């Protein structure tokens, strides 16, 4: 166990959380991330028992989840694995696959609504050029948000995750908080 103390992508010792009306935006630092890509001709593995999803989709398992990022490429998420060597675990679960540590490549921000889908979808309208009507639970995509490249995951009707390059964490938080705040006013 290292004696170095990590900081979150927003530069604090604890995750940031802010509420705007029915919407709550939360930084989620304890997620391990690793990219998984197939070698040529390799069969699709089932890491952590996951059936790796088709384009535009995400799947959630008991200990890990995954979303499609490109042909024969997925991102594997390990809740609670933010400080572990999650890539090594994925490598064990998907022998022979090409795995790269991505945990700190991104900041994961979760947006939840306590008033159903409507506030979340209204927020999406102001953030991303993705049709909330067809972007239902289980959908995942890569898109642009306020000049930032993001992964967008609809975890549930009332829950959305945004993955942004870690170095842009504060810019992304500003965009999310400003937009959600405006909606709440």
């Amino acid at each position, binding site marked *: 166990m290292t004696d170095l103390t990590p900081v979150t992508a927003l530069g604090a010792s604890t995750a940031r959380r802010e509420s705007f009306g029915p919407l709550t935006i939360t930084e989620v630092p304890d997620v391990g991330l690793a990219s998984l890509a197939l070698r040529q001709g390799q069969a699709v593995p089932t890491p952590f028992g996951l059936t790796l999803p088709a384009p535009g989709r995400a799947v959630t398992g008991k200990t890990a989840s995954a979303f499609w990022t490109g042909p024969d490429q997925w991102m594997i998420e390990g809740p609670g694995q933010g400080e572990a060597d999650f890539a090594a675990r994925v490598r064990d679960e998907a022998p022979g696959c090409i795995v790269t540590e991505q*945990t700190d490549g991104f900041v994961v921000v979760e947006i939840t609504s306590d008033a159903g889908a409507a506030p979340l979808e209204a927020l999406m309208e102001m953030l991303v050029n993705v049709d909330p009507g067809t972007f239902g639970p289980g959908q995942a995509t890569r898109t642009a948000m306020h000049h930032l490249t993001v992964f967008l995951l609809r975890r549930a009707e009332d829950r959305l995750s945004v993955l942004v390059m870690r170095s*842009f964490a504060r810019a992304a938080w500003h965009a999310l908080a400003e937009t959600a705040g405006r909606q709440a006013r």
Partner: protein
Amino acid sequence: MTRLTGGLIDREKPLDFTFDGRSYSGYAGDTLAAALMANGVDLIGRSFKYHRPRGVLSAGSEEPNALVTLRDGARAEPNTRATVAELYAGLTARSQNHVGSLERDLLAVNDLLSPLFAAGFYYKTFMWPRTFWEKLYEPAIRRAAGLGALSMEPDPDAYDKGFLHCDLLVIGAGAAGLMAALTAGRAGAKVILADEDMRPGGRLLAESDLLNDAPAHEWVRAVRAELASFPNVRFMPRTTVFGVYDHGIYGAVERVADHLPTPGDGVRQTFWRITAKRAVLAAGAIERHIPFADNDRPGILLAGAMRAYANRWATLPGRAGAPVAVFTNGDDGHRTARDLVAKGVPVLGVVDTREDAQAFGDYEVFRGATVTGTRGRRGLRAIQITRGATATWHDVGALGVAGGWNPNVHLASHHRGRPVWKADLLAFVPGADGPKGLFPAGAVAGRGGTASALADGVRAATTALADIGMTAPKVALPEASDVPHAQAAFWHVPGKRRAWVDFQNDVTVKDIALAHTENMRSVEHLKRWTTLGMATDQGKTSNIAALAVMAEQTGQTIPGTGTTIFRPPYTGVSLSVLGGGDTGKHFRPTRLTPTHDWAAAQGATFVEVGPWMRAQMFPRAGEGHWRETVDREVTAVRSAVGICDVTTLGKIDVQGADAAEFLNRVYANMMATLKVGRVRYGLMLREDGHLYDDGTCARLGEDHFVVTTTTANAGAVYRNMEFARQCLWPDLDVQLISTTDAWAQIAVAGPKSRALLERIVDDTDLSNEAFPFMACAALTICGGLRARLFRISFSGELAYELAVPARYGHALMERLAERGADLGVTPYGTEALGVLRIEKGHATGAEITGQTTASMLGLGRMVSAKKDALGAVMSRREGLAAEAWRLVGLKPVGGDGPILAGSHLFTEGAVRTLDTDQGWVTSACYSPNLGRHIALGYLEHGDTRMGERIVAANPLEGQEMAVEVVSPDFVDPEGVRLRD
């Protein structure tokens, strides 16, 4: 003038406002133009060129004349059309383009000088002397001719942007648009209905014709209520769809708070990008006028607008009680006379160019007659009616002009859609080659009669929905009729006096004739020569009249004369809203390094490097000049140990059985032979053989590499590598992914760097034997944290780069600073980094400019001849291979002034011309190690000219300096230190 009866204004809600400092009162539902008219204010501004008094011409967004500056201070908004500015309590507006008062504009003298100011005057007159144009002529002309002025203060309001998706976008909420939306709404389609007006209805609000035997606005209200009950329909008032873009994307601006004094907590406007599967264009039509002598006085307006002011806003221009006349070439003008008579307004009569004109009601018709002149300095007082050889003057307070209607083909003409002339309608309608998925309906399609438009809305929506596999239910139409609309092809009244075609640009019939005489035969040339159709209204009321006049000149038909091309935006869009609200430091997102907060706490200053903020230097108390700071940091690196965040350099993870082969093809030099645990410097070439980027390539495993790029090119190199992987060599087993953000990377440089690192690594032998120059390894530090260590050096010293997961970067920096205190550890920034690399002759963006070859850097032999790689063949082409510039070091001869980067290099005594130019200085700095200024530069055959004295000249500033050509390796040229 007092109000007429009726109207769609709320007389229970009076609103006070000011115009040119005077107080007036209007009602909720008024536009500024309507409210001014109701207060008897007809003179609203001065014209662009001649400073002629001008009033309201239209009742919509096509307005060329009634432009005002709305609001005060930083919110002042010039050139706002009073005809679409919604009245609110406390509105302030000012007239524009006059010197002195609006009533007595001193620059009205321009009107007397008008013979001088004909089209083309400026082009011909202000040619000589050339130097006078920028300093004298242009400012003077701009002062005299212009519209409103900007406040020059930052816009205080917030703006937003957003994205909407729908099955059917309906543009325009008039008769056709409402029926289209209703049809699609009932079909269950996701519908967006947008209209630029504050309320739906379009022309239905301006006409007196009944729907279902009741005023049309009652039907509109019922439809609006039904649409509001559909969860699948979104009605967006005050929203202008201004452009059609690729793949069914429409640009729209919603004026969220323009009808309020300030937006308060909210936004003023929102820029929407609407992705629509299909769209119905139901944008209506714009009435055209008929140019005749002195047709621009306040009180002369479009007959349809006059009807709108009377029916919707219960007002009319002109002196109270003065009779009103209409000048028309068709039936439509008679509707105005009919409505005014019904409202009890004294009507002089209708001047109809047709001999067989029929009256719509009880008023006089001047058949086969034209209006040939007007009087009234600041407002219309009389018109001259001519029939045959007989001309008579008649006192009037206002004149409505009806020249026919032009379908709003604008959006259908985006994507280079060409409108088609319909001889029976005397108008252009959308052609078949317009934007895909856009269905014109109603007046846009030439079906502007109320009954026709209603039916056409249903038809268009049904067709559009069928196109996407949706079925529309049968929708019953309200009872309506089409008013007769016979019309003569009468385009302008010939005469000797000026007859305005384009009011906004002060272009007359004579100007168009002159343009033709001057051989401006193409309509595009006409436009540019006369400025017709330019500025804020884009010729909405003038284009067709101008084409008709030009057709007459050329003896061609109107469609034979051509049309100009319509481009977005339909009406003006402010840059603020296009920017979408991201201003100031949020104009573009900023990237922060993992040690940003640590550096800030140390008092670092920061510099923008692309989107990144990098620590520039770490000034200490007592350091009065930036050079003191930089010299200290550089000296610390060369004598002790320095630490610097280098996370910003791009990192790309390359894995796969063919990773080595892939990199061999991407890098100009040999990479496949790199041993596991070793790093190699690499050069990437562009396809054309020039240097693209440089960096390092570390082999962490047999099929696992991590390559680094420069900060600036990180994204582009990754993109190019992906292109090569996916498109050039899809057969190779290789995968790429960026890990730039995942790892915090800290450079630890200086003779004591090993000693410092030995204090934090876990059980790793860092001795020169075990971990030599260009070694790399995955290891752990600080009690088990996974890390990567690279022994590479940008400074020329014994140096390492240490990478840890980004969340630990901050703590690692703290730890290095703490554990290295006794070693003299010093954080350094990009300035010191720059000095260190110049002292060592290492290239960066200043040297690798995109026009640089490997040979110029003295690295020509790195381009391997034993294999092929991107750009390798082209780098050997004739001409490029013969490039004689070589990177050299330069130091001043005698004295020690700074050498200016950008200076050009000449042999001593040479005449300084492009032909004798021998190169240039790329980078320069003060070297604290050498105690003098030094520089790097490219010099012809520089590698064979060591010791030669040449001149670095900066002719722009009249500076020159004698310099000596030396090796670019100023420090430790044998490279002993970095291998120690």
